């Protein structure tokens, strides 16, 4: 039965890192100070490493620029994108914490319909600490939320749920549209506050946005590779999409849950749609093939860890998507490099090398 009492949400301040990719100063953190100040930040500086990134006083952080990434990973640094926010996944790799929250530097605190500031991080933590229900859809959304429960007809054997690996938050104001949609609807703003968290059903993939995202690094970290984007690559703005498709397939295989919905942040900046179009236009064609690929992926029962699943996925990407474009051969190789780098930085005995919760399906 879903919990009836409301316990305060634990801070998890020593178990969670906030990963922020940036090329500019982090003044946006001032607005987040009441909610972020107690946490450790991992800042991944993209672009020119000689630029100094100003972080507001009082935040505890470690910062990595491109020189650091090259130094730490050596030749394996080739898997980390340059001149694209995809480089943020380096932060996931070097973190030693159980949970990650990642946010873009143009995302601010939103207000709920009552006018109250939304503590996005607290909601993500609630989402991650609470089970997911991917095996059967609950029409009242998250059954574990205060004021909700499982509806009539929901089997009792499924009411314990499964561990939550990912919490995908949403955005008020500038919605996460692709370039064509932005060009057609430049003034559209998301003003609808949908007061729900829901589990994305097993077998269903989704477009995961990296702007306001939290995950359990122990459960799913190695799957959160944000791909090869930006400088020297034929594509951009598909980093989080790629990570999301891989992550969901692996979560489905390992019996983990992915939630979407609350919390909202306020997305303030609309990037230039013409620039976006140039970056993503290949993706718009390629996603027609990529989606069916992920929808029909089958991972073998022997894959019981995230790393094994990911390596097998990389093989299938190389086998089946290379015919779409040679880029996918490079990407498949980079996926393997990523796992090698992950395992090097997170040697066994460490959580991510242990079999994930739940058995492979």
């Amino acid at each position, binding site marked *: *039965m879903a919990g*009836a009492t409301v316990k305060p949400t634990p801070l998890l301040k020593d178990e969670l890192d906030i990963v922020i990719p940036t090329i500019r100063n982090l003044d946006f953190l001032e607005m987040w100070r009441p909610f972020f100040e107690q946490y450790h930040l991992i800042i991944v500086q993209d672009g020119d490493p000689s630029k100094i990134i100003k972080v507001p006083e009082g935040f505890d952080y470690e910062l990595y620029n491109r020189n650091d990434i090259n130094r730490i990973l050596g030749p394996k640094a080739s898997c980390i994108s340059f001149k694209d926010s995809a480089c943020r996944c380096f932060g996931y790799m070097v973190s030693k914490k159980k949970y990650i929250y990642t946010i873009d530097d143009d995302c601010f605190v939103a207000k709920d*319909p009552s006018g109250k500031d939304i503590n996005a991080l607290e909601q993500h933590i609630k989402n991650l600490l609470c089970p997911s229900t991917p095996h*059967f*859809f*609950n*029409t*009242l*959304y998250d059954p574990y939320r205060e*004021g*909700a*429960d*499982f*509806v*009539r*007809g*929901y*089997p*009792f*054997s*499924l009411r314990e749920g499964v561990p939550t690996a990912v919490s*995908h938050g*949403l955005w008020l104001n500038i*919605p*996460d*549209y*692709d370039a*064509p*949609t932005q060009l057609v*609807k430049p003034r*559209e*703003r*998301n*003003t*609808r*506050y*949908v*007061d*729900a968290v829901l589990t*994305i*059903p*097993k*077998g*269903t*993939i*989704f*477009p*995961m*946005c990296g702007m306001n995202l939290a995950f359990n690094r122990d459960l799913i970290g190695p799957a959160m590779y944000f791909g090869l984007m930006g400088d020297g690559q034929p594509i951009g*703005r*598909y980093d989080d*999409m790629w990570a*999301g498709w891989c992550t969901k397939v692996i979560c489905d295989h390992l019996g983990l849950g992915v939630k*979407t919905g609350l919390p909202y942040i306020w997305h303030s900046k609309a990037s230039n749609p013409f620039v976006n179009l140039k970056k*993503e236009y290949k993706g*718009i064609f390629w*996603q*027609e093939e990529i*989606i069916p690929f992920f929808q029909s992926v089958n991972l073998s029962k022997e894959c019981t860890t995230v790393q094994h699943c990911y390596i097998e996925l990389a093989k299938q990407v190389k086998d089946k998507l290379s015919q779409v474009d040679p880029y996918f051969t490079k990407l498949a190789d980079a996926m393997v490099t990523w796992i090698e780098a992950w395992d090097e930085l997170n040697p066994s005995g460490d959580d991510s090398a242990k079999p994930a919760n739940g058995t492979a399906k």
Partner: protein
Amino acid sequence: MSQISINHDEVDIVIGALQLDLKSFMEEWRPVFSLFHLIIVKDPDLKGELEIPAGFNFDLYTKSDIDGVVGSSSNAISFSGYSCRYFGYLMSRKKYIISIDDDCIPARDSAGNFVDAVSQHITNLSTPATPFFFNTLYDPFCKGADFVRGYPFSLRSGVDCGLSCGLWLNLADLDAPTQALKPELRNTRYVDAVLTVPARTMMPVSGINIGFNRELVGPALLPAFRLAKEGNLRWETVEDIWTGMCVKVVCDQLRLGVKSGLPYVWRKERGDAIESLKKEWEGVKLMEDVVPFFQSLRLSTSAATAEDCLSEIAAVVKEQLAPANPVFARAAETMVEWVKLWKRVQTQ
């Protein structure tokens, strides 16, 4: 939500009357119901005269009408209790049917506005559904929303929507054990979203507040799954859950969509969960078998109509579930009889 212009001639509102006094129910809904044709079906077990206020355009069906139409199949198909509404579906010739339990009144949204549930169901049914890929901003066709980055363009036309499942404020559709354990629990959360339930994802469809496209999925809304001690409270039945899964399987097979979310209705207090709990747990126990069954059900590629799908489902139920419990054997029989009845009546 964006409102589209509704052709009132395309809609029937079907009300199953499980209580004699429909006056307050109909008065609450008057602003909406008075614009449409209604089909009121009186529970054949209910004795006495229905009280229906003036000013509505309706057809009323009672036990004698049911017996007259159904004739010899009346052995297999029971229209008692909540199942009486299915007779209304059988009699309708309209494209869209909206059906709301007679203990539900209009809700108010977060701004305090009257929720026109009928209009919202029709909007849901007449705008495309998107079952093949999940949109994180929910319904992309509603005003102020769209498909998000990463959504394949080839999937953006969507498919027809077969079923619209609404929700309930106040008394949510929880089962008896849950409500008995949390007697104070009331649903006060108005979630301003409609979403398409993904293909191949099963869900519990509550019959309390639904709309459907009769032309596309009509026969799939059938009275088949009767508990041994079925009662006149939703806590004492799971017939709609069974029916809903049949509809979902049919929609998945025919590449139609099922939506869930808005509209809300306000469900009034009725009955006592603990009293219902003291009766059988049968429905709750049976779900353990029903859900996995429907999740793994695969129909043949030749099943191209709702009727074909139902016949196949009935055959598999008979083969796989019937041996375990007579409820399933009866359900399979009833489904077969219903399809015959539907075909006969619809061609008249």
